[in-house]
């Protein structure tokens, strides 16, 4: 895995963690407009980066559209524990 893919993966992990944190905050503050705005921003960026990563490397999730075109790509990439960050 090259440096660009690793960097993308790292950014995706950061944004996923941020989305979970905002998710937990909004569970108790469902009408907080600032938190909602930040979550929308995180989600947009996360979808964009995920699409870019999957286009370059393959599916991040087994149910991604990228994984089931003409070849089952889910097994082509290293498993998470095989990646050296």
């Amino acid at each position, binding site marked *: 895995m090259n440096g660009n893919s690793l960097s993308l993966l790292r950014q995706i992990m950061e944004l996923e963690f*941020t989305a979970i944190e905002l998710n937990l*905050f909004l569970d108790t503050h469902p009408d*907080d407009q600032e938190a909602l705005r930040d979550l929308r921003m995180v989600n947009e960026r996360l979808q964009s980066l995920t699409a870019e990563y999957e286009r370059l490397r393959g599916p991040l999730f087994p149910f991604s559209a990228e994984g089931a075109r003409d070849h089952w790509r889910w097994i082509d990439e290293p498993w998470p524990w095989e990646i050296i960050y």
Partner: protein
Amino acid sequence: MNGFRKKPLVWGPLPPAPRPDQFPAAVDQDTAPPWDAPVMEAAGTGTTVETRAAAAEPDAPVAEKMVEDAEPVVSAGEEKTGDSTAVEMEAPEERVFPGPGPYPPPAPPGPSCPGMELATAYIPYQRYGPTYSPAEALEKGTLFPELYRPYPY
């Protein structure tokens, strides 16, 4: 870059716990405990110490009589052999430690948290404020600076 506000807060370490010599003065007749325990003078310290044992003094002769009448306890499977290898346990010497005073220390006069009731737990409502960047949040384990509590290694 991504519109996140950078960390505006830098949290310092928690204040240290008070040392015993920083505890408030323990003995004050005006703030004495409500029970009628006798107050005795600890030898050589000049510090007065209240003991519950002293409060139980009137019952002491009865208790001693009961101990004298009681048969020695021998557990099942154990015989009284007079074995010289048996180790006799000596009762620990009774000592009076002056200590820092009654625990918990007497509260200062007046309400410490106005508007709050005793024995009620409070969780302040979190407000959405400045957050860490996603990279820093993943590193620190929280998005919120007010929840960042690193162990002081």
